[in-house]
Structure formats: structure tokens, C-alpha cells
């Protein structure tokens, strides 16, 4: 199996990806992610089902999220360790971005 792509090649994350990964810190079904993202982004990010489906496929393929259970029609997804790493790395970048723009906020 070829080595997984280095994390830094996925950065920076889009808002969509960032919020999906953040939402999946705990296991959730697809629709649950949609609701949670709207909530934690304070309404600034809404995910359409087309976008969500595409993101899930890609994130699962790259090993950032994985399926937890497949009972009937309720598939749960959750962040993997690799996904957690990616998220933390991006979050640190965001912190630097916010700090650098502090002067604007005044």
C-alpha cells in the first residue's frame, strides 16, 4: 500500500472541510453533521447534501474519517487519528491568522 499523502499537502482546509472534521470529533450520521456544522459555525456555514456527500467520500478515501457502524440506514462517521492531526494543524494556522489580524479589529 503506498504511503499516505503528507498532511501539509491538504492545507489550508476549506471552511467546509474544517467544520465537517470538527463536527466529527464525536460519531454522527450525515444529516447530524449538517445540523451540527450550522450550529457550531454560528450560522455562517450551511452545508448542502451534495457538498456533504462529496466531502464525506473524499475524507473517507484519504483516511481522515471512518465509518463507525452500518446499522440499517444509519451510518455513523467519526474523525480518525489522522483526521484529528490534520484538524489540529489547521487550527494552529488559524490561530496565527487571527493573531496577525488583531490590529484590524481595533
Amino acid at each position, binding site marked *: 500500500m503506498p504511503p499516505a499523502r503528507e498532511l501539509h499537502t491538504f492545507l489550508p482546509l*476549506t*471552511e*467546509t472541510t474544517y467544520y465537517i472534521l470538527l463536527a466529527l470529533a464525536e460519531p454522527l450520521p*450525515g*444529516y447530524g453533521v*449538517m445540523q451540527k456544522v450550522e450550529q457550531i459555525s454560528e450560522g455562517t*456555514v*450551511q*452545508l*448542502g*447534501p*451534495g*457538498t*456533504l*456527500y*462529496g*466531502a464525506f*467520500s473524499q475524507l473517507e478515501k484519504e483516511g481522515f474519517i471512518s465509518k463507525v457502524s452500518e446499522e440499517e*440506514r444509519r*451510518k455513523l462517521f467519526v474523525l480518525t487519528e489522522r483526521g484529528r492531526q490534520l484538524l489540529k494543524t489547521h487550527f494552529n494556522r488559524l490561530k496565527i491568522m487571527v493573531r496577525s489580524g488583531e490590529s484590524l479589529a481595533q
Partner: protein
Amino acid sequence: MNKDTKTIFKVFTAWQDDREEVWLRDMARQGWHLVKPGVGKYVFRRGEPQDVVYRLDYYSLWNNDEKQTYYDLFEQSGWELVGELVGWQYFRKPARAGEADEIYTDSESKIKKHTRVIILFGILLLMMGLNLINIGHMQFDSEVGRAAVTGLLSLAAVLDGYALLRTWLRVRALQSLP
């Protein structure tokens, strides 16, 4: 003549999906709701005028497990599947103020949809190209026959190439948006 249904013949190309969505919404506002999409043909049934948003998605390759997950996600977020047509999925949802009415909420995923269309056109073009090359090796009853087949296949290839170009231009336009 049944006044409760109506059939309209109209052609929208793959790169005019946004116009098709607008037209279907207009029809709904006039009380005509899509029963079944067809190639160049739309069947509507009469109902209450309602502001309904239509969105078209495109997926050509599936494994059955994924298809159910896909449909479930749409259904759970309030989108009704009207029908499927050569890979094009027709969804609709009543328009409500403050509610997202897009199935693709960022340009990156929207672009991916059109990229899937481009890939299909590309594969078809490749197949036509290979066939055109093969014609030279094939037996024909007459040279007129050979010329006719070559002509038709070339025409199809040109049209496909044009479709590919127009869809690519649509991707370009989407890429220039924030």
C-alpha cells in the same frame, strides 16, 4: 385531452442546468409540477402554485451501497427526488425564507459536479476517436457507406467536443467566483 397533465418538449444541455432549474421553478410557481424528466421532454401535473426550488445533480458511476447513502442524505435534508435521467438527479424542495436552497454550498464541490460531466464527455470522445481510427480497418460494402459512417461519427465527435468545451467554460466561470 387531460387538463391535469401536460408534456413540454424542450432541450437543456448539460451546461445549462442552472437555466433548467430556473425554468422548473417558474413552472412550479404557475402550478405545474414535474412528474418525470425525459430527454428533451418534461411531463408536468397540475397542482397548487408553489415556489419550489429544483436542483440538478450529476453522478454517473455508482456502487449501490453509496447510492442509498446519497439519497438518504438528500431526503433527510428535505429534498425530494423527482427522478433520475442518464446520471442526472432531479431534486426539489419548497422554497423557505432563510433556508439553504442549494445542494452545493461551496464552489469547489459545485465544480466537481461539472468535472464529472466533463469526464463523461471525455470518455465518449475518446471512444468516438478510437472508432474513427478503426474505420480505416473495417470492411464496407461501398465507399459511400464508409464516408457516411465517417461523416456521422465525426459530427458526433465535434458535437461532443463542443459540449466538453462549453462545460469546461462553465467550470472556469465557477472557478473565478470566491
